[in-house]
Every structure is written in C-alpha cells, then in structure tokens.
C-alpha cells in the first residue's frame, strides 16, 4: 500500500425525493468526506438504513449524487460545483496569492461519462443470486463485461480470459457453461467476484459480500478477497454491518450513522480507542463468541430506534439516542475533525 490517494470524496450528499412530501426527501448520505489510498481496504459499518450502501453506489455514480465532489485517481468523476480549489499554474503547482496563501478558484459542475471509469471501478453485491442474471450462463455473465470494454481481440482470447478468471476465484473451467442456480451461495458469490475482476479493475466496492453466506463459507470468501487484493493490488471499499469481519479485512474503518460519517480511524485503533459514543455502543453490541468474556463484560444498550432519514434530528444526528447528549448536540452539527493522528470523529463531547 502506498500513500497515494486513489479516491477522494468531498461533502458527498445523496437525497432521494419522496413523492407528495415537501423538502429534500430521504437524506440518505449527508456531507460525507473521505479518501481511500491505493491498495488499502476502507471498511464502512453502520446499521441498516445508515446510508452505507447508498454511499458506495453514489461513489460509483450508480446513483447520481445530489451534491459533492468525487475525484478518482486525480480525475474528477463528479463535481456539483462551487468547491474552492487551489488554482494551478502550467506545471500543476498552486499559484501563490497576494496574502501568501494559495490562490483559489471555484470548481465548475462536471459529470463526465462514466464508461472509461467503469473499467477501473467495480462492485460486488450482497445477494449473489439476485445479482446474477438467471438466464445467462456463468461464461456469458463474465464475458459480457469483457465484450463491453472490448478487452478480448478474438474469441479464443475471450474464452481464455473467462477460464483464467474462473480458476482464479476457485471454480472449475467447466463451470462456464452452467447457470447461476446450479451453484451454492458461496460459489455464486465467487462468480460475482469473477465478474467484477473481468475488466481488471483497480477499485472494488464490496457491498456486504458475505452477509448472505453461511458462517463456514464466509471465511472462504474473505480469504479469497484478501488473496486477490495482494495479487492484483486492488483497493477495496468494504461495506458490512458485521464489525468483526470489517475489522479483520480493513486497514481503516468508517462508522456511519443516519447518513453521516461519525468516526474514521485505523481498524485496531478504532477497536481499542473508540471516540464517538455511537462507535462505543456498536462495539459493545457485538455478541462475543466467548462465554466467559460475554458474561464478564457490561454492555451499553441504546434506547429506541434509529430516527427516520426523512426527518433526521437537527444538530448531531445521534443526539436523540446518545447517553451523553448535551444541549449543544441538538443545536449544532459537530465538526468532523482529527483528534489523534489519522483518527477523526464528529462529536461535541470530545471538545
């Protein structure tokens, strides 16, 4: 893993309008900023409805963002405009302004064609049986991506690509002629991985890739994803609600609550020194597969349910369920800032 930032997301916002309701509708992703370095795995956790899947899909522009800016490998793939950027000179260096600070200019709205980026950015979905076309053979499913991006110059080459992909995900080459229903859940997910890898991508959004699988199969898929990453230098955005798996596979973890990123830190740092009260609750809610530890520990149980993202609480979105909430929490949105090196959180109590 090098320090080069592969993907940068700034103040990304995704609202889904609701018919017959005034206002912005469902505020699924609210001002999320993060960056992913080349070769790293960024985990994203949170409860259902917190916007983690929406964030993943909006980054790929499978959902068109409502606002914000997404930079992939130095190229803007979305910009809603109005971001202050340093004004570069011909060599790409920023020009000094009058007061010594770099000159800035406002960015323009841009939304380029995604097809060239689709080759570099792929996704693996949660439910393998729902994300594979039941009427296509596995070979056709994998080959479709190869065709769209014109990666094979001849039929033989196309077949070779499909065969080598199948064996790289641990399936037999004869499986190319079978249909998805002939496979078990774990094998279907391997097909899903092979399809994503068909275009030789650099960045893959893994959207709950193991949640639908049996426990004994989950670790097989996790190990395979790790092997692929090491062999091909892939960068992952790994979305899941199971914090123990996310912690295992990720270099850094972002915790989401009701559309906002509330904490972002290195995996083991987050585990040992969680800052945000929601992260603490989430950690304490995971059942520990160890009877003695389970008996020994005390748990923070949250009151109530997650509020509706159509009408999220003002200020800090967590204040309605937070055991430490103060008056300021319901008035001001806390700033997402760095408390320790590489450890960011959004919480008033930390100040």
């Amino acid at each position: 893993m090098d320090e080069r930032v592969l993907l940068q997301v700034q103040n990304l916002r995704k609202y889904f309008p609701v018919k017959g309701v005034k206002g912005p509708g469902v505020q699924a992703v609210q001002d999320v900023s993060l960056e992913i370095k080349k070769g790293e795995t960024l985990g994203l956790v949170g409860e259902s409805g917190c916007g983690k899947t929406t964030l993943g899909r909006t980054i790929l522009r499978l959902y068109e963002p409502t606002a914000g800016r997404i930079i992939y490998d130095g190229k803007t793939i979305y910009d809603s405009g109005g971001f202050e950027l340093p004004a570069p000179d011909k060599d790409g260096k920023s020009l000094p302004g009058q007061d010594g600070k770099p000159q800035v200019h406002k960015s323009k709205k841009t939304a380029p064609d995604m097809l060239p980026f689709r080759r570099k950015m792929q996704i693996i979905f949660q439910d393998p049986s729902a994300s594979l076309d039941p009427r296509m053979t596995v070979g056709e499913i994998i080959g479709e991506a190869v065709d769209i991006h014109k990666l094979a110059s001849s039929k033989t080459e196309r077949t070779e690509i499909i065969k080598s992909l199948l064996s790289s995900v641990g399936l037999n080459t004869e499986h190319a002629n079978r249909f998805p229903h002939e496979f078990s859940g774990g094998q279907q997910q391997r097909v899903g991985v092979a399809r994503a890898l068909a275009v030789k991508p650099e960045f893959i959004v893994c959207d709950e890739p193991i949640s639908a699988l049996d426990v004994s199969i989950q670790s097989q898929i996790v190990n395979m994803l790790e092997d692929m990453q090491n062999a091909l230098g892939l960068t992952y955005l790994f979305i899941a609600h199971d914090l123990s798996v996310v912690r295992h596979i990720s270099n850094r973890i972002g915790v989401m609550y009701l559309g906002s990123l509330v904490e972002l830190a290195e995996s083991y740092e987050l585990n040992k020194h969680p800052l945000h009260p929601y992260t603490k609750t989430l950690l304490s809610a995971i059942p520990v597969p160890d009877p003695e530890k389970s008996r020994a520990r005390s748990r923070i149980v949250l009151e109530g349910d997650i509020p509706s993202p159509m009408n999220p609480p003002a200020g800090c979105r967590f204040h309605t369920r937070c055991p430490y909430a103060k008056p300021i929490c319901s008035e001001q949105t806390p700033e997402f800032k760095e408390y320790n090196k590489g450890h960011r959180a959004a919480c008033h109590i930390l100040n």
Partner: protein
Amino acid sequence: MDNTEKKLLEVKDLRVSFFTPAGEVKAVGGISYDLGCGEVMGIVGESGSGKSVEAYSIMGLLQSPGKVIGGSISFEGEDVLAYDKDQMLDFRGKKVSMIFQNPMTSLNPVYTIGNQLAEALRTHNKGISPAQANGKAMEMLTLVGINNVGKRMKQYPHEFSGGMRQRVMIAMGLICSPKLLIADEPTTALDVTIQAQILELMKELQKKTGMGIIFITHNLGVVAEICDKVSVMYAGKIIEQGKVDDIFYKPGHPYTIGLLRSMPRVDAEAYERLIPIDGTPVDMLNPPDGCPFAPRCEHCMQICLTKMPPYIALGEDHRSACWLRVQEKLNGGEGQNNG
C-alpha cells in the same frame, strides 16, 4: 441452575423427512436431547442443517411433504407426537410457543397489535372477558419494554420498527406463560444494536419467568451470550452437544473446531488470517454415506466415509460424534484434542 433435574422436554432419535419429487430428504436424521426447566439451549447450524425443521416438529407445524418418521418427543412426560388436533391446539401457544426470524411476516398486517395479542390469550382462556384480555395484553407490552402502550395497542404492525415488532412477537409468545419458548433466529433480521436490546430482554424475561428456551441461531456470539448448553447440528444430525463452556473451550468435533476457528477473533490485536472450512455444505438430496462432515474434514479417515460415528462422551453432558474421538477412546487416551 438447581431446578434442572426435572426434564421439561425430551427428544429421542427424532427423524423428519421431506418426500419431494426429487427424492427423500432426511432433514433431521435421528437427534436426541433433553431440556430441563429454566434451561436455555442453543441449536447452532448452517442453513439446511435441519435446525428449524426440528423446532417445527415439536410445535406440530410441519407441513407436507415433511413428516416425522420416527423417534419421540415428550413434553413433561407426555408424548407430543401422539396428540390429536385439539390437544395440539391446547399445547401450542399455551405450553410451548415460538417466535420467528422475521416478525413482519409473522404478524397479521390487517389487525391491530392489541387485537392479535388478545386473540392469543382468548384462544386459550375461553372464559376471559375482552377487557381482561386487553389488560393482560397491555401488561405484556409494558413487560417487553414498549412505551405508550394505550396508543400502541391500536396500531398496526407496519407502524412498528423491526425491533419493536420482535418485542411484540415476544409479548405474544409469552402471554399465556408457556414453559418453553422456541426462538427461531429471533435476532438474525435485526441490527446489532437492536439485537443487543432483544437479547437483554430475553435474558431478563427468562430470569423472571423461569421458562426454558430453545434458541436456534447460526451466530456463535449469540449462543455464547444467552445459552447454558449447545447442540451443534450438521446435515440433520447433532454432531456435538455440551455445556456452552465445553463447546467453546473444549470442542471435540472438527466441524465445531472449524467453525470457531473460521471467525475473526474479537480480541485480535493484529491481523490474523482466517482459517476457513473448505468445501461446500452437504447436498441433502445426496448426503454422503458415513459422517456427513467427512468430505470437508481435514482429519477424514477411511471409516468416516462409510460409517456414521457413535457418540463418545467427552465429559459430563458433553458428547460428540466423531471417529477421531472414538479412536482416542480406544487408545485409552481421555485427553481432548482442541485442534
């Protein structure tokens, strides 16, 4: 637990098959266990291991083409399988009740919550007045931690969140004070923070009422948290059984060992590669001869492929069906292999 000598439920060599057009599927292939009053037993297994089918047979809820083809189920000494329809109606809901994985599909969307709770009570207590039934329903809702009960009674299932619906299901299950509650993956569809709430609630209610619970799940973390003892199922058979500590700290079956090893450790300080169980789950239409786990087992021997191993006692109330353990016993070694 001191009240465990009296057996609440005894299941002996239960066999359930589904007669499908493609052939007989032996979903449950001869399982035995017992449960004392106030005990919480976990049944762990992958999808298709027969854990739910087993629970459905106790409740008499098996549907065609499923059929109990052998064995016995006795509840407080009475043979449940011999019950006629009326006896079964009386047994189900009053003595034993069940909560399911998805609370939305188990609640009727066109009746109010209050109506559905009171119905459960009135079915089993013909003499009770509507006002009394309503009062009891409100009492139960309060017990499971639902606020604003008066208003909530008049609401419909869709007006409740997932966690709240599961609370309603628990209230409904407990309204006739059953002695046994069967919980079939009650927290699987819920988020971790809501799962934590429901687990705390079930632990508290179990202490309060002293009922026995059969907790069906695939989540070993949940098992460690709530169960006194555990049965591990694989392909319709219980391959290991014991107290919760024995299962977690002295597992005797390669499948149990493999399951525990394949999960990321919670207290891991740094990255450790996972050790998965290779292979795929059993095709129940064509189960292998011998031990069903043999094709995936790293210690597989010749005999494993031909004969199902007998149970070997590994300690008090701890037994496992594995030829490795049989071999150890024959060699005179009492020691257990923790893998």
